[in-house]
């Protein structure tokens, strides 16, 4: 397969898994939690690297999941100590992220781990690190990792579909039905963490937030059904990944930045044109009400 094809496939996989996870982030009103986790995952990766001196594979995933869970746990702990949720997030993620940046810039700055890379991602290098798989042949490592993560995400969503639905829309009902909401919360946080770390190589820490939240928020404006929202959100993710790639190729700039920008364009279109929640339809509706 060609170089461009691998990049587009990788980017689409990011769009797919982020789009699916993002729906629940938006519905559970935890969008900023993904921002927090995407920053602290950096610390997890750095620590995993310092301990194993290896930059790929399961070490990084484990480090990232632990960092994500640590963030979720610390935020919850401070919140329980009577601190406002956003304030506790702000404290936890900035501190852990700062520690990560300090570790990189002081001890391993000349190593393969590069802060610029971690933040902005470098999808252009993805096709160069390949591994041999049976049947398909040489496949970029990042792409394999993203495919595995997507598989985990899809399976987890399908297996617990009813539970996700109830805990997202009505946590009180879920608790009274005996659904373990704390377990579901941390399971969800783990999913966010692995998605983030898998997308890390491709789009970097901050742009992954755009891929997570924006397609889901756009989908939220078009539909009231969870299943349709999941479908729409993941398609928006894939579409913005592809549009982003071509914008970047056109003006020769950062691919991940353009992908984030493309999610923004899709949101603006949805925001203006959506039939039920869109800006135009609502302002037209208001006018009609005034005339009648």
């Amino acid at each position, binding site marked *: 397969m060609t170089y461009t094809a691998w990049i587009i496939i990788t980017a689409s996989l990011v769009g797919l898994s982020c789009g699916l996870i993002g729906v629940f982030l938006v519905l559970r009103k935890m969008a*900023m939690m993904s921002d927090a986790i995407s920053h602290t995952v950096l610390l997890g990766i750095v620590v995993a690297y310092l301990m194993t001196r290896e930059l790929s594979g399961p070490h990084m995933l484990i480090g990232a999941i632990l960092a994500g869970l640590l963030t979720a746990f610390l935020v919850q702990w401070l919140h329980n100590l009577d601190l406002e949720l956003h304030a506790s997030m702000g404290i936890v993620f900035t501190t852990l992220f700062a520690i990560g940046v300090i570790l990189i810039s002081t001890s391993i700055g000349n190593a393969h781990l590069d802060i610029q890379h971690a933040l902005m991602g470098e999808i252009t290098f993805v096709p160069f690190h390949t591994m041999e798989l049976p049947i398909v042949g040489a496949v970029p490592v990042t792409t394999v990792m993203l495919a595995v993560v997507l598989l985990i995400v899809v399976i987890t969503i399908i297996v617990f579909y009813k539970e996700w639905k109830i805990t997202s829309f009505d946590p009180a009902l879920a608790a009274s039905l005996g659904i373990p909401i704390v377990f579901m919360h941390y399971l969800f946080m783990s999913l966010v963490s692995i998605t983030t770390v898998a997308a890390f190589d491709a789009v970097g820490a901050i742009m992954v937030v755009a891929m997570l939240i924006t397609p889901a928020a756009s989908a939220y404006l078009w539909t009231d059904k969870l299943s349709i929202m999941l479908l729409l959100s993941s398609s928006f993710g894939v579409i913005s990944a592809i549009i982003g790639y071509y914008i970047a190729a056109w003006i020769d700039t950062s691919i991940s930045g353009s992908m984030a920008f493309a999610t923004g364009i899709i949101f603006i279109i949805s925001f203006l044109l959506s039939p039920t929640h869109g800006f135009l339809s609502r302002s037209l509706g208001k006018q009609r009400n005034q005339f009648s």
Partner: protein
Amino acid sequence: MWSILSTSNTQWVLFSATILGIAAGIVGCLSYWKKQSLMSDALAHAALPGVVITFLIIGEKNLFFLIIGAAISALLGAFFIQWVQSSTRITEDTAMGMTLSVFFGLGIMLLTVVNRTAGGNQSGLDSFIFGQAAAMVRSDVNTMLALAFFVILIVIAGFKEWKLYLFDPSFAKGLGLSLSLMNVLYTTVLVTTIVIGIQAVGVILIAALLIIPSVSARYWTQKLKTMFLLSACFGGISGAIGTAISAIGRGWPTGPFIVVVAALFFIISLVFGKEKGILLKHLQFRKQQKAHSQEIGHHPVFQKEGK
């Protein structure tokens, strides 16, 4: 280390980082009580495209103009968050996350273009991401100091009005205080603090300087005035120590060190704080438990038979 600290440029940089910390500490108290802690994070990221676009227009790194560009872009972000949140069912949380990441993405896109063009690499715009206080020249320091003093002055001069605005807006309105004017002022000081901070601390971590000192101060006092003072101290000291540490190593970013020092203050406050500190709470709990168990012990029901 002293040889580095005693050069005059470093002294100026250190001084401006301290003043920045003080301004951020004070403004952070406002956003703490407005319950908008993460708004500063969103606005800081939203400032990035403004910085780069201004650089593309004027073609040189003049901090004053870059700050104006950053402020316009951050205000656009604030407006967008407000607009999306008020006209759809999307929550503030989601609107903030979107604005933050999409604006930042646009900023990175433009930054890559700038860095690619000839001479762009020397622009030093990269230092806006993590902050590089050492890269500041004297004119930058002057701009920063002037704006920081302006922010501190506005908050201190209107202390009584801010108090009313934060704690009892309807009463403030009754007294004839214009709430929309206060909102505009609040947004102005918040955005100003953020944009002057991004050169020294960087767009990603400037939010920490607004959030952490004010929350730490909250653990020591119930009075707003004391909270302002303490928060300003925590912010100022973190700014100074963080900058001093980052001056030791070559090319060490300033922002992360400032944040880690501020976080140390937070941990100390969280554990030992006079109000709601963990240790005190624990001791009180133990004392109560003891008193309670003694009470129960003396209760006739729990006395042993035949005694």
